[in-house]
């Protein structure tokens, strides 16, 4: 496969006030990849993602399609990258269709209003996410898993090929976690590129073409999932022991539970 870089991060440093969070990140995201960013709480995963989305100032250290992020407006970034946050509550009770239609905002002019085409695209996105039947339901009344799917549908309605997901399975029940991972896997096979942060090495093994591990503000490992996720790395990063086993031809990560 010819590797075409979409996002390039070079020697990126970032501090909140005077607390350094990122200490020299080098990272490239290629077209068609599914990259999992792994690392303990506070390692800088989410900060890195926010920098790549131009939500924080990266000071000319990040290039999107060869041009510095600073040269893009928010609208232009949104026409390349769709951001899927962790599901959350919305203060006003919009319907699911209205939420998904918000993904179309970067396609509209300043005075433009969503047209029938936008509504059709929103319905297509809902169908792709497998939640067409929820279109008229109020977003606030959905379960966590359904909300996460609505946010994914909103990203699909954005009609971009690059998805950023911030801890997508957080707060979802066991079944919904696996179903969401399967949906990501399906979309990846269709050619979408993913960058997702995760707390689960096992999920990174299941659905990634590459894994980057962050710790203490730097990327300490970056490569194929089965090469990066090893017992030694888990112990170093998380301070626990885990076995990497093979199950159904795929490597899985199983933590060792010590009984007293």
């Amino acid at each position, binding site marked *: 496969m010819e590797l075409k870089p979409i996002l390039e991060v070079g020697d990126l440093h970032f501090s909140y006030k005077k607390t350094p969070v990122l200490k020299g990140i080098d990272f490239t995201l290629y077209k068609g990849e599914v990259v999992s960013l792994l690392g303990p709480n506070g390692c800088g995963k989410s900060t890195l993602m926010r920098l790549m989305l131009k*939500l924080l100032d990266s000071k000319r250290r990040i290039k999107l399609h060869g041009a510095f992020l600073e040269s893009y407006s928010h609208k232009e970034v949104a026409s390349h990258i769709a951001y899927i946050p962790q599901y959350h509550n*919305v203060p*006003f009770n919009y319907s699911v269709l209205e939420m998904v239609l918000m993904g179309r905002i970067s396609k509209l002019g300043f005075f433009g209003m969503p047209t029938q085409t936008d509504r059709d695209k929103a319905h297509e996105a809902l169908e792709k996410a497998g939640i067409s039947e929820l279109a008229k339901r109020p977003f606030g009344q959905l379960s966590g898993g359904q909300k996460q799917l609505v946010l994914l549908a909103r990203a699909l309605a954005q009609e971009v090929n690059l998805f950023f997901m911030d801890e997508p399975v957080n707060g979802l029940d066991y079944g919904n976690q696996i179903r969401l991972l399967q949906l990501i896997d399906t979309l990846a096979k269709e050619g979408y590129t993913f960058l997702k942060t995760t707390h689960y090495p096992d999920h990174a093994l299941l659905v990634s073409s590459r894994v980057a591990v962050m710790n203490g503000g730097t990327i300490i490992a970056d490569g194929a999932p089965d090469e990066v996720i090893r017992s030694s790395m888990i112990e170093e990063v998380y301070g626990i022991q885990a076995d990497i086993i093979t199950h159904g031809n795929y490597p899985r990560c199983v933590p060792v539970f010590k009984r007293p």
Partner: protein
Amino acid sequence: MMHAYKQRTLLIGATLLLVATALFMLLWGQYPIDMATFGAYLQMKFTGAQTLDQATFSLIDNIIIEIRLPRVLLAILIGAALAISGAVFQAMFVNPLVSPGILGVLAGASFGAACGMLVSENWLVVQGMAFAFGFIAVGFAVLVGSMVSSSRSSVMLVLGGVISGSLFTSLLSVVKYVADPYSTLPAIVYWLMGSLSMAQLNEVLTVAVPIVLSILGMLFMSKYFDLLSLGDEEAKALGVNVKRIRIIAIVLATLASSLAVVMAGIIGWVGLIIPHIIRMAVGPSHRLLLPLSALFGGAFLLLADAVSRLALSVEIPIGILTSLIGIPIFIIVLKNARAAWN
């Protein structure tokens, strides 16, 4: 979400309701005019046909053009301006309890008007100062808000608004304290109660231009307000220039509400309850909420003005009335309105 045709029907229905209310208010009053006479009057006014005798025509012309039309237009403009500004601020601050005064515009304009009355007998000076201080108060709120952290900017803005509002309320008290207790003080107090009785047609038509433009501006921006209520970061990631939208919205809403104060003093509650009721009825999507708030805000203030003129033999200040009508309505709808936001 409603179908497009259903939305259109609602908007057309609300517009017709507003027009019907306005027409009723033109005809109804101490001197009632029946439809036939009104029709004859219009015919004579616009075609010159002698459908009425000259004395009747002059009387009706005087009543409608000099007295009722300016008041009707002003009530619609102010009701619409306050209701849509309230809805916009509620979206921007992601808080349904916010009203147009959140950034201190009402306190600032009140102080400005009181100062104007203190220093000048000229009504233009009073209005000019009310308008200027409305903007100064909001500017001060924005300045205070941006001096503190920029990460939770909307919370800091509200805090800035609280500080600015308190400051100008205190300054207003100073003005009241030093004002002549026999002439200026009663004028200030009466003005603060709100009234549409000062309305004159040419003046109303003059302020109508900026008020209508700012209302149209807010309507055109309605799609962004849905996104702002998701929070700044998510709105930016979806492609919204949050800072620019917020500045434009603050300027437009401040322009509309400070002009409302300039023309009619302090009229409370419209900006709070109307968006609530509309949101409860049609949902939170601002593409529908904003135009309907404007239309119903106008109709509400028309009716409130009718009550203020006709309930008692003396005119009740409309600002008192909107509170007295607004509070029970708010208590009744609050329980249901709760369902429209989480």
